[in-house]
């Protein structure tokens, strides 16, 4: 296994107008590691993912994906990265087949078999356009397309948000199944603490524009081993982190 991180953020800052969303984020994701980003709405989780994909440029700091600058080497990075947005953003008229047809020529490592396996496993309708799918079905279609690319890095932006429990479980199983393939680094932003506890090798709490806490679930919640009520413990940690950040701002 390479010692170079698959994904690296070093002292990254990014703002929108006067609002500074990220203010010195440093985080590495190793190959085959799953890191879950936790944080309140507006903490900058999606911003961090877009920086990794080169959809935004950092104000300061550096971002590398597999050793490449995602802004200057956008084409190469996007061939290595699978991205699942927080909502399906492909063309509404596209079916899964159309989606695969459009994406296939862009990705040299595209594997139709892998994609179709994911479609089947996630029970995605193949002859229905996206505009006729539910949000969950659309999310699963996007996940299948991301997996068909055979990416080295998988970025998931709130993949479970707004899904009913059945669909959420489908998506979660799909993610876990993808992780079993091994060798793939995953950075997942989510509010779903239960899912985070199930898939994360490490969790990173984003607050105040920085990584407030990072480590295994046990390390973050302060136990020697992962507790049984990890989601609840993570919730408490989040609340405590938000409070301390808020207090710091007030002082």
């Amino acid at each position, binding site marked *: 296994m390479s010692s170079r991180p698959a994904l690296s953020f070093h002292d990254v800052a990014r703002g929108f107008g006067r609002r500074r969303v990220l203010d010195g984020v440093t985080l590495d994701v190793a190959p085959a590691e799953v890191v879950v980003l936790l944080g309140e709405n507006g903490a900058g989780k999606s911003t961090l993912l877009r920086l990794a994909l080169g*959809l935004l440029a950092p104000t300061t700091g550096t971002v590398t994906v597999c050793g490449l600058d995602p802004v200057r080497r956008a*084409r*190469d990075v996007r*061939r290595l990265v699978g991205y699942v947005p927080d909502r399906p953003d492909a*063309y509404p008229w596209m079916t899964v087949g159309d989606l695969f047809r*459009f*994406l296939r*020529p*862009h990705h040299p490592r595209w594997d139709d078999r892998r994609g179709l396996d994911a479609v089947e496993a996630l029970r995605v309708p193949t002859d229905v356009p996206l505009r006729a799918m539910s949000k969950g079905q659309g999310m699963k279609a996007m996940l299948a397309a991301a997996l068909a690319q055979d990416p080295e890095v998988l970025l998931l932006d709130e993949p479970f948000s707004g899904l009913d429990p059945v669909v959420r479980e489908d998506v979660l199983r799909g993610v876990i199944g993808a992780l079993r393939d091994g060798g793939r680094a995953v950075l997942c932003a989510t509010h779903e603490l239960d899912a985070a506890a199930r898939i994360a090798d490490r969790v990173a709490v984003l607050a105040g524009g920085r990584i407030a806490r990072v480590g295994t679930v046990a390390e973050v919640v302060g136990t020697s081993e992962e507790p049984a009520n990890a989601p609840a413990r993570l919730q408490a940690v989040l609340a405590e982190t938000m409070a301390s950040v808020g207090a710091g701002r007030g002082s």
Partner: protein
Amino acid sequence: MRALWTHVWKEWREHRAVLVGIAVAVPLLTLGALFLMRGEPVTLEKAWPVFVAGAAVLAALSLATELLAGELQRGTLAFVRRAPGGLGLALAGKLVAYVGLTAAAAVLARVAYVGGVRLLAPDVPVPSVLPAETFLFAAPVVVLGLWVLFLSTWIPRGAAAAAAAFLVLGALGVPAWLAHRAWPSFRPPSSVVATGLAFVVGVPLVGLAIGLLRGHRFATRAWRPLVVSAAVLVGAAGLAYGYGFRALDAWVHLTPYDDDFVIAHAVASRDGRTLYVTAARVDASTGERDARTARPWRVDVASGAWSEIAPPGSGAYDVLDWTGASIGACETGAGLVGVMGRDGNAIRWVDADTGATWKTLPTDFAPAELVARRRDELERRTTVRSADGRPVWMLEKRLEWRGADGGLVARALPDGVFGGWAHRWGWMGWRRQDGGGSVAVAIGVDAEGRVVAGPWGRAGTKAVHARLGVGRYLSCDGREAPRGARRWTTVDAATGASVPTPGLLPRDEVVLAVSERTVVVSGEPDAAQRATPAVVDVETGERRPWTWDDGTPMRVTSLYGRATLGDGTRVVGVGASDRGAGYVLVDATSGAPRSFTACELATHPYAIARVDAVGVLLVGRHEIVRVRWGTTTTWSTRDVVFPRRRRAAP
């Protein structure tokens, strides 16, 4: 490449409904229109470009308003932005789809037209199913759509972007329209046209690339690239118009070295050392001079150096041109030259010898001092003589001469007589008739100092050769009648009595007056429109062929303009003969031609100044030449006075 075609497929798929609709509508509309026009085969044959352009407009505007603006409105740009090819490949796919589908619509219209014509009007010829012009007529529409795409990067609303494109193009076209209004005969050179085309096609492409690839590069919209693309538009427009207006400026400011430089007329100074040349550009399509480009130069005859003396739209004229009764001969140079500007409101009077401004006066204002100078000029330059040999001139509707004591004698024209244009030896005017209308009359001064105007009494007559020095003039009755129906008479200016002119035949045309009693006439033209000239003594009626010494006839088609060389023994006539345009040297006594020299001359040239006893300046279309003959020889030397070095810097 596969990725590019995937983007093209994606555009087709996304706009499939509209495109299918266009594919159905174009043939139906075309056939419908052809059906309505089937009774007008001429219109049918010429109407196909309208169908092609119309189909192209339909496709281009449908696509251009949706390809980018629609994508921005629907928010699907984020999906293509994060694809490995990014927005660059997406843009390439959009452009390929746009151009290809618009061209396809044009082809469809053409094919539908051909099919419809063969079905509904088989007599209408259709030589080719798909001529190359099909794409030519669609090209402007494609370019228009590029501007819509470009402005979609500023305005992500299709209809608004289309409206903005029309406004921007309209605004960009305003300077060109204004320039065309001011200078309608200006034809931009090919380099200017190419620059304009490069601007119209290149700027939207560059602006589109900057606006989309930089302005929408990241998930957040950046305003700076849009400002940059606007700056590119303004900057490119400035450069293109700068180049174009530079060409216009060069065209407006005519120089003697320009290819379309044509001399309108020229005036020599009194001392013969200076020329005032007025020239203009010629519109290549019409052959007409563009008066707006005319301007006068002052030329030193000895050195050939020239300088502009007035801005474009001006001209320099002999002072006698304003007298209303010009001498009609220009062997003597002018003492005063008038320079009139484009608005024609004022004339700057210039001493022709020195070039110094004498006065600037309103055009229609002739104060006493100007009248005096005109009188001096007329008195010095008139070739008309009274019956007793005095110089006579016409000024302000009066005939004037010097009496025996040197005092000025002025006599009004007879009642009812008006006008007065000078032939070499007298004036012709008009006399009003009691019953209405007027007849031509000859005006002169008899030996007793009386102004006479020869009574006519017959309609359709015209005096063609005044000999008022001897109190007679030559009249051609039935002047407007065909040859063969004319009658030549010699009329006594005082009494009006007329007798047939000896020596002249009904089919003759007087082409050159060698002297008061010797004229050259052209006979009836042959099948090749060449006339056999003859020399006629109108006193004795002696007639002999106008031939060279070896007996070869001197064939002329027209002769216009003449001058007498200083020693009075020879006359120079200019015109056209079977040897081409040129000038002929004629013996003033016998009328026999001595030499002919081919030379490109202006339409109505005249010898404008005597250089000396054996030389003359001739005005050509593009140059002024000095011709000199030996005292006793007929061969001549010829050199160019102006411009000295054609197409070389002064």
